[in-house]
Each structure stands twice: as structure tokens, then as C-alpha cells.
């Protein structure tokens, strides 16, 4: 498992330019992302559309509190909506992904026969997926669990992701180099936005409010913090407001959200609703995780929300 294929792109400049364009777009798009899974999905979608990859998968290592490791599919995007994804999302592929993540492999490109079991490979070739490349994203910083994952047994794990890309024609060296460069940039950005240094969290969840880079850890108590609403600007413009995706399922969180008016601080909201700080914290945590609100100091400065929630 060593090197890329020997294909050569007729227009290497285009691939290089595309990589630069995607990297520039990534820096713009990242401002609107609140969780690393959104980044994975964005990258997968870009690879499918820009580099003619048939299917892109992000497999991540995860650990439970017992220290047992397993793999988890964080994102899978296919170019053809009619493609039956269960042929590429199954235990055999998962086993290969875990094998790749457990070994010390370099980025690679292989015919599928050389990477998967013969049965799996024949299934893939039946659907025209003849080649599979694997690129890795590694960091010593912690990857948060899947968004809204309620499994308390899972703990944040150092970032270790295998990006499997399935191709019909043999991809060029330039294509793969461009993808690897984009993934390197993505790891670098993730370290400052979505990943957390080991030992800095007990909750395993990252705060959802991430779209302003200059958040600071507040010295104030939660009582003095002002929660502010984040209105979904796409609602009614590009997303159906009647689809039900806007519902706040938790009744306490909904009640709390109703009282949020960008002026009241948490103490005033508690008085208004006749609730205690513990209830307010629970509601706030739900609303922050659902990306409905962000937290500010009285002077308007954004604050790091996880600091407050880790206390509880």
C-alpha cells in the first residue's frame, strides 16, 4: 500500500486552480458551520462535484469509555442519487476502514480488488466503482462525537479519519494531490474551530456557536450572560419553513427560547419564567447545541458557551 496511480492530468493547472478555489470556498463556508460533520459533508459534496468522484466516505475512529475502538461513518455522499448506498455502507467496508485506520498507511490508490474482499470488490465493480483511494486526516486534537449523539459511553477521540473515494475511471495524480491538499487545509482549520485539545472538556460536546472566530472565555457568571437568538436566514428563502425541521422538541427549551429577546440576561429570564439556574442551564445547553442561540456578555462580546455547560 504505497503510492498513487500513474495517471497524468491533461490540464494539471486546472486541478491546481480548482484546489485553490475549493480551499478559498472552504474558508468562506466554514463561517456558517457549527459542527465538524458539516465540514465533512461539505468536503464530500465538493469532491463529488469537482473531481468526479462517484462516492465519498468519511470513516472516523471512535472510542468508548472502556477504551474500545471502532469505526463510524460520519458522512457518505454519492454522485448518483439512484446509487444504492448500502453496497458501500456495510460491515465489510467498515472493517476495511478500521484496518486502514489501525495501520500506519500512507495515502493510497488501489483497484478495489486489492483493498476489499473479493465479494465486496465484485459488488463494487458491478456498479462501476473500479478504483478506491484512501486519504487520511489525523490530529492529536479531539474529534467530537456525532452531532446530537446521546450515547454517554462515547468519548472524544483524537482525529483519525479515513476518507475513501471511489472512482470509475482511474483518477490522475493531480486530482489526488489536490484532494489531499484540501484535506490538509481542512484539518488545519478544524483544529482551530471544531477540535479540542485533550483534557479541555468533560462533556464530549462542542458548542454549536462557532461562526465568529473571536469568542472569549467569559469571566462572568452564567446569570449575567445574555442569550441571543440566531434566526435561520435560509428559512422561507431556501428551506421550507413548514417542513417541521424548525421545531424545538424539548418543552423547557422552547419555553426558555420564547423568553429570549436579546435583551434579558439569564437571571432575568429565570425570574421571568420562575425557573432555577439548573433548569436554565439545561435549556440553554439544548438551544446552543441546536444552534438556536449564542451567548454574549452585556457589552455584546461573544463568549465560549461550553465553559458554562462543563460546570454542570
Amino acid at each position, binding site marked *: 500500500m504505497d503510492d498513487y496511480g500513474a495517471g497524468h492530468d491533461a490540464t494539471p493547472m486546472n486541478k491546481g486552480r480548482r484546489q485553490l478555489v475549493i480551499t478559498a470556498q472552504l474558508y468562506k463556508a466554514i463561517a456558517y458551520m457549527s459542527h465538524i460533520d458539516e465540514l465533512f459533508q461539505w468536503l464530500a459534496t465538493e469532491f463529488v462535484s469537482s473531481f468526479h468522484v462517484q462516492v465519498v466516505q468519511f470513516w472516523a475512529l471512535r472510542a468508548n469509555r472502556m477504551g474500545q475502538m471502532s469505526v463510524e461513518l460520519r*458522512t457518505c455522499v454519492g*454522485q448518483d442519487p439512484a446509487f444504492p448506498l448500502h453496497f458501500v455502507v456495510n460491515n465489510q467496508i*467498515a472493517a476495511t476502514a478500521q484496518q486502514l485506520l489501525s495501520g500506519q498507511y500512507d495515502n493510497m490508490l488501489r483497484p478495489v480488488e486489492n483493498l476489499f474482499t473479493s465479494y465486496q470488490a465484485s459488488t463494487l465493480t458491478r456498479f462501476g466503482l473500479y478504483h478506491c483511494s484512501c486519504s487520511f486526516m489525523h490530529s492529536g486534537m479531539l474529534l467530537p462525537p456525532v452531532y446530537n449523539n446521546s450515547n454517554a459511553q462515547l468519548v472524544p477521540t483524537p482525529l483519525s479519519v479515513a476518507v475513501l473515494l471511489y472512482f470509475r475511471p482511474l483518477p490522475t495524480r493531480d486530482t489526488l494531490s489536490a484532494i489531499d491538499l484540501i484535506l490538509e487545509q481542512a484539518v488545519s482549520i478544524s483544529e482551530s474551530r471544531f477540535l479540542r485539545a485533550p483534557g479541555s472538556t468533560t462533556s464530549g460536546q462542542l458548542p454549536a456557536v462557532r461562526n465568529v472566530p473571536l469568542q472569549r472565555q467569559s469571566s462572568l457568571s452564567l446569570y449575567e450572560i445574555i442569550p441571543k437568538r440566531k434566526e435561520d436566514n435560509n428559512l*422561507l*428563502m431556501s428551506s*421550507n419553513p413548514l417542513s417541521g425541521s*424548525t*421545531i424545538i422538541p424539548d418543552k423547557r427549551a422552547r419555553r426558555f427560547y420564547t423568553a429570549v429577546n436579546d435583551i434579558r440576561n439569564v437571571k432575568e429570564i429565570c425570574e421571568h419564567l420562575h425557573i432555577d439556574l439548573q433548569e436554565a442551564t439545561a435549556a440553554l445547553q439544548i438551544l446552543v447545541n441546536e444552534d438556536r442561540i449564542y451567548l454574549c456578555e452585556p457589552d455584546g462580546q461573544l463568549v465560549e458557551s461550553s465553559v458554562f455547560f462543563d460546570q454542570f
Partner: protein
Amino acid sequence: MDPNFVPNVLSLTLFFVSLFISLRALYLYTQARSRRIFILSISMGVISLTAIAGFVGDNVTSIPLNVDWFNYIGQTVSFIFILLSFISGSEAYLRNLMRWQIAVSILLLGLMLLSPVLPPEFPAPTLTKTLLSGSRGLICHIIFYYYVVSFMKMETRFSLLMGLAFLALSFGYLIILPKYFIPNDGLDRTGDIMRVCGLIFLFFAVLLPDVKFRNREKVRSNYQYTK
């Protein structure tokens, strides 16, 4: 054919589509507390009232009902509030907009209740009707452009269908303007049919789930496997 057939179909379609959207949005507002959904709910509620008022006005002849005032002004104002809700997502702005909408809607209900006693004809009817009816078309056309921009950016089925809906509605309103100068049943019917088409697009836009056309992506996530 009954001359009221096409206007009745339009009124009833408008009534049911806008009532459905209004009630669904109201329910979702209680569950999501989104101010933009509230504004949509009230706007569509007022539009549904204009539709049923128009239907009653067209079909009840025993008592004089001058519902055109409520019809034109109610629809124009409702579309304006939908348009204004696009302009900013700030909490203070949407909260103020909600308050204004509630106040204006109460005034509009008063206008509806006054239908039996309002003067049967507008002052300078040609000009007034052209302005009031044309303003609906203009507002719908501006909303259409908002959806075009949104579609160019996000390429969702929702913005496409909403764009088509407001395009049809705006042309439906604008095409009937000449009838205020020279009565023309043909234009009137064409306008009504276009508006019915617009309402059908609107209905499907809010009924169908969100789909993004860009990249024809199909996304699955969070499958978990343990070796």
C-alpha cells in the same frame, strides 16, 4: 359557463392554500417560536380571509358587500410583511415587525367588518384600483426576485417552486391591470388562471420536503459499525 366560475375557483384555491399554510405555520410557531414563521402565518391568514371575503362578495347579492377595499389592501399588506421578513434576521427587527403586523392586521379585520358600509366605489376608481391591485403584483414580483437570488445561491426545490409561484402570482396580478381602463373578461380570466397556477406551485413548495439540486447529492450519515 357561470361567469363567476373562474373567480370562484381562484377564491377557493386561494382560501384553502393560504389557510393551510397559515394554520400549519401557526402550529409550527407554537413549536419553534420562530418570528419569521409567525409573520408568514399571519400574512397567509389575512390572505385567506381576503379570499373568502372575495368569494362571499362575488356570490352574495342580497346585501351589499364592498370587499374590494379589504381584498386589495389586505393582500398588498400581507405580501409586504412577507417581503419585509426577508430583509433582516435580527431579533429586534423581526420582533418589531411582528408587533406592526399584529396592529395592522387588526386594522385590516376592521376594514373587513366594515365591508357592508364602505362606499361601493373607490375614489378615482381607475387610478385607485390600478394602484392597489398593481401594488400586489409589484410586491409579488420583488419577492420573486428574492427567490431567484436564493435559487441561484442554494439551488433548492423550495426556492425554485416559490419563485415560480410568485412569478405566476405577480403576472396574474399585473396582467389584469388593463381591465381597470377597458373592461376585458379575457384578461381577467387569464390573470385568474395564472394566479391559480401560482397557488398550486405555492402549495407544492410547502408540501414537498427540501431538496437541494446542486451536485444531485444524496447524503447519509451517522451509520455506525463496530468491528
